[in-house]
């Protein structure tokens, strides 16, 4: 068994409504950038993993493992597609990490990709609802904003969280997105803009929701022995963990908490040998603004129920005690669902190399990524470090 696994290359496309780009052009661009960045030759790569939620419904294309290996020029290598809704990317990374940990692989490339704008946005929403329970949620007229609204309502009821506090997540993430040249929404929004935007599912409004996005991201992983030889700025994956929960929201013990995230985080902290207060920054899954509030509670950055007040006090802004979503998060950067988990890791690598420019977190040594599938049926947590 290999002792450690490092990220030795990272690449990411622009995120947005990219009419000129296809599924294959997006993943090829991100993968090429990651391999260029790693400095290794393509022949050295032992395997490929790709996270994608629903290329079949978004583009009519399945069997994307073969397609990606083929079009990236990585002829004949073993390739695996991983699917866990919006957490497909991080789960693909975890499988790649385990393949190196097992000792079977030295170099593995992992991509995440979604091309979402080739179909009408209402059809995209129906496709995304595939991440929920078709028989007992979708049949009742549920939407993803609706499911997160049910969580938000309960969080407000149990903890006194306010809509202003929830809206502050969107304001902060748009502020951060302005500093990220790859982000979909490089503009600021005010609290009033968020609170007065179009109602989607009470209490959530349009500016509480992440957008529909095209995009891809990729990283190259290497075993510790190889990484030390070929890379002078490796970023180490100190922990990879995953937990699942019921597919349907209503079956959870409690909907104002994300228990899969709590379990995955606890396991990640144990494996990395750190505590929540040791984390310097985090990229979390803010598919809806309330999700970031529940995420920072599950990750232990604040007490359960305090996420709203913690956000209101600016603790999660770039200059706060624990910067969250410096990339702009899913809200500001965009949310090409299968790409998101890898894009979060690309941001962590950028921060840990000190290459984040105006959004750089000072003295960043430990970063955490938190990627969620559906309404919380899957959560994948990674802890990365530059030491």
């Amino acid at each position, binding site marked *: 068994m290999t002792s450690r696994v490092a990220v030795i290359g990272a690449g990411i496309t622009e995120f947005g409504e990219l009419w000129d780009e296809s599924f294959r052009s997006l993943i090829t661009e991100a993968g090429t950038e990651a391999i260029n960045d790693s400095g290794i030759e393509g022949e050295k790569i032992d395997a490929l993993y790709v996270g994608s939620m629903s290329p079949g419904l978004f583009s009519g294309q399945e069997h994307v493992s073969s397609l990606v290996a083929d079009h990236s020029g990585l002829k004949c290598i073993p390739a695996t597609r991983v699917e866990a809704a919006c957490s497909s990317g991080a789960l693909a990374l975890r499988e790649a990490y385990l393949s190196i940990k097992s000792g079977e692989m030295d170099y593995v490339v992992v991509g995440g990709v979604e091309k979402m704008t080739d179909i009408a946005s*209402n*059809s995209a*929403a*129906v496709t995304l*609802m595939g991440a929920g*329970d*078709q*028989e*007992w*949620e*979708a*049949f*009742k*007229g*549920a*939407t993803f*904003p*609706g499911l997160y*609204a*049910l*969580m938000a*309502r*309960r969080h407000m*009821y149990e903890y006194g969280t306010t809509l202003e506090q929830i809206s502050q997540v969107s304001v902060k993430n748009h502020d951060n997105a302005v500093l990220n040249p790859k982000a979909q929404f490089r503009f600021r929004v005010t609290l009033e803009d968020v609170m007065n935007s*179009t*109602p*989607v*599912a*009470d*209490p*959530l409004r349009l500016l509480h929701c992440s957008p529909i996005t095209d995009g891809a991201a990729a990283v190259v992983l290497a075993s510790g022995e190889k990484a030390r030889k070929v890379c002078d700025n490796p970023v180490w994956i100190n922990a990879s963990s995953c937990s699942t929960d019921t597919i*349907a*929201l*209503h*079956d959870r013990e409690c*909907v104002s908490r994300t228990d899969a995230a709590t379990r995955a985080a606890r396991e990640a902290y144990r494996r990395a040998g750190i505590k929540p207060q040791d984390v310097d920054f985090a990229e979390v899954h803010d598919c809806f603004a309330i999700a970031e509030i529940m995420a920072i509670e599950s990750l232990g950055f604040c007490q359960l129920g305090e996420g709203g007040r913690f956000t209101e006090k600016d603790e999660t802004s770039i200059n706060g005690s624990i910067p969250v979503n410096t990339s702009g998060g899913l809200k500001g950067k965009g949310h090409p669902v299968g790409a998101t988990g890898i894009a979060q890791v690309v941001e962590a690598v950028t921060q840990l190399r000190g290459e984040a420019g105006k959004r750089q977190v000072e003295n960043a040594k430990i970063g955490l990524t938190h990627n969620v599938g559906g309404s919380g049926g899957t959560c994948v947590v990674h802890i990365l470090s530059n030491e």
Partner: protein
Amino acid sequence: MTGIATHWRLIPQRYNLVGTRCSNCGNKFFPPRDICPDCRRAGNIEEFRFSGDGRVYSYTVIHTPPEGFEFQKPYVLGIIELAEGPRLLSQIVDCKPGDVEIGSRVEKVFRKVIADGREGIIRYGYKFKLKDH
């Protein structure tokens, strides 16, 4: 989601709230489960029909509905905690959105859930209405 074959298989559950219970530990399940998560293979699953009484555990008002639900908007969608314990998702009907609160008492009603256009098949099932209304 709304496939005819799927709906046909689920008619007892969707019409009459027929779920399951584990006679080993007594846990009741709606929507039904074939395996008790606590007892697994040691469990013994049998049918159980729920009364249809419950309370609102959480709710939202859907303003941006999915395909097939456009004509119902805005509609209230709630998580209902059944009197027997399990929770399910359902529309709450026959009231104004502002009338629903967490804790409101509700009861099952039988309604049209979704139809496939002018000539399409209509699928029925449970919805809930406020009891003290």
